[in-house]
């Protein structure tokens, strides 16, 4: 069952009609094929034109689409020999972040991915992709492991943000995020991040202080959620749409601002329409970025990463 977003309603109607007609044609009426073809073309055109000019708020909805491929899908399709490793060795195991060793395009690497979950049970298991300090400390542990064995680090970023809870605060959520940024910036192995869905604030930066930050065409990455921003600056969450525009959280804007390095194209109608194609495209982009960074002498990686961040933000949108 396909999940349609609000602004996809016209497409949904057309596709509904097509389904109905297909049912009828199963009953033996052959003349319908032409009509189905006509409607299909119309639906495709509509989908294409809708997705060609998505607003920032619409992109936010696409980025949060329940059927959008998640870190686990990327790992399953792209990472061979994946061997999950768990636990921060300090307190617990946080399943908001998937973690382990594996090979991407033949290169052994450490893989970290924020996972939101796909149904009620798995969403609870993964805490909707909101990591606690244990998740970030596990990430640090694996980054250090990568450093020790000279393995690149690949991260899949997809989180509404770090978890806001009593225990998370008591166990040092702020410190855990800060330290993850510090450890990631200190590595002298390649670090490549892909924002696959929602890059939610500090909880995302913790896994995105990388040499190269790639981002899917309809993913978003922001200092605060549009809802959060609206409720503070507009004093009403109803202005989320305005906040989304103002925050410049789209891949296109972030690329213009020099915050991300590459925008990865999504299939027409968004990643959720063709998850496998999306994952494959991301895989190629990742491999390209990885091999480009592997060609850099190991002793220079860290300095180049630092330089990149130090130079960031000197130019506005122009």
């Amino acid at each position: 069952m396909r999940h349609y977003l609000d602004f996809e309603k016209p497409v949904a109607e057309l596709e509904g009609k097509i389904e109905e007609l297909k049912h009828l044609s199963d009953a033996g009426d052959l003349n319908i094929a032409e009509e189905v073809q006509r409607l299909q073309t119309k639906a495709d055109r509509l989908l294409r034109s809708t997705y060609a000019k998505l607003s920032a708020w619409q992109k936010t909805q696409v980025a949060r689409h329940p059927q959008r491929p998640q870190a686990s899908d990327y790992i399953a399709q792209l990472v061979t020999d994946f061997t999950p490793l768990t636990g921060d060795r300090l307190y617990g195991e946080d399943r908001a972040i998937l973690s382990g060793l594996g090979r991407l395009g033949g290169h052994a690497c450490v893989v970290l991915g924020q996972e939101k979950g796909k149904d009620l049970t798995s969403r609870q298991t993964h805490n909707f992709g909101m990591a606690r300090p244990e998740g970030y400390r596990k990430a640090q542990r694996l980054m250090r492991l990568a450093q020790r064995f000279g393995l690149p680090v690949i991260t899949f970023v997809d989180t509404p943000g770090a978890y806001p809870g009593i225990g998370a605060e008591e166990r040092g959520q702020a410190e855990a995020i800060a330290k993850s940024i510090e450890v990631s910036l200190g590595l002298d192995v390649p670090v490549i991040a892909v924002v696959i869905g929602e890059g939610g604030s500090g909880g995302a930066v913790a896994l995105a202080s990388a040499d190269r930050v790639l981002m899917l065409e309809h993913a978003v990455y922001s200092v605060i959620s549009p809802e959060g921003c609206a409720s503070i600056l507009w004093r009403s969450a109803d202005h989320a749409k305005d906040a989304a525009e103002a925050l410049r959280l789209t891949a296109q804007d972030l690329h213009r601002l020099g915050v991300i390095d590459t925008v990865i194209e999504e299939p027409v109608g968004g990643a959720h329409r063709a998850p496998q194609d999306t994952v494959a495209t991301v895989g190629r982009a990742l491999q390209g970025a990885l091999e480009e960074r592997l060609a850099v002498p190991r002793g220079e990686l860290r300095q180049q990463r630092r330089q990149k961040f130090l130079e960031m933000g000197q130019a506005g949108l122009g």
Partner: protein
Amino acid sequence: MNWISDYVRPRIRSLIAKQDVPENLWEKCPSCGQMIFHRELEANLRVCTACGHHMRISAQRRLELLFDEGEFQTIELPETPVDPLRFRDRERYTDRLKKARSKTGKQDAIVVAHGTIGGSKAVVACFDFAFMGGSMGIAVGEGLVAAARLAVLQEAALIAVPASGGARMQEGILSLMQMPRSTIAVEQVKEAGLPYIVLLTDPTTGGVSASFAMLGDIHISEPGAVIGFAGQRVIEETIREQLPEGFQRAEYLRDHGMVDLVVPRGELNATLGRLLSLLTVPSLPRAAEIIPLAPPEAAADGTGPGEPVATEAESVTSGGELESAEREPQEPRGG
């Protein structure tokens, strides 16, 4: 019209002015409600004489009480792009900036100064909460980067004094990027073998707490300061539970292992001075590498020639002598 402007308005003004007098001379403690005579409050460093509540103070006042004899020199901070996103909510960001500038007389929410504390050289990067809630945007990040460079150049300790609600929303993702940028800044100080101390003041939350503010060699806090990642309202809405007594206060963080010392305002100069002298007059030659992330044996990995990492700390000799000529020249950039 004349009657209004010549008679009514002055009358109204004089009525209001009369009420103004006690408000200017007496201040109410926001914690216990005690009325305190303004001179008494100032003499007590804006700490309530009845309950010990530490009120927020300006960056200027903070610097005066941190440095020896209240003497310090501020440095000019590099110019940064103004309103890079052309952000507008109910108000233009440029207008909000103008207001904050005229209200505080400051260019942005951070002031960087150098001087001595307990006789030791120190660079202090101090937030001003009065400037847009001390929020961290490009200018603040740039201030921290400049402060770190100055500390390295002067072989001085770096002391960061956050008073901030977090990242500045009006600079969007570029504010978020100040988290890695400020982290790099303080790393450079640590790698030079210099002390990096954070004095957490009320409040230190959000992206500020989740970056440079939680990466100090030592964390000091003022009593009662709110320190945490998520805002209390957000937590309450998420978990739908009442927050425990004293949650996210300095003492609570100390009890949970996040802060070394909770120090009353009047003792900050002495405490910092003592710490700096303990840290900077080592009885053993100081190890320059602070975070040995690259053990030499990790070289055989097949990803590159695998030379040991040339950390910046290697330009510091074991005696702590800085060969500044070898240091990467990183001039403050213009905007």
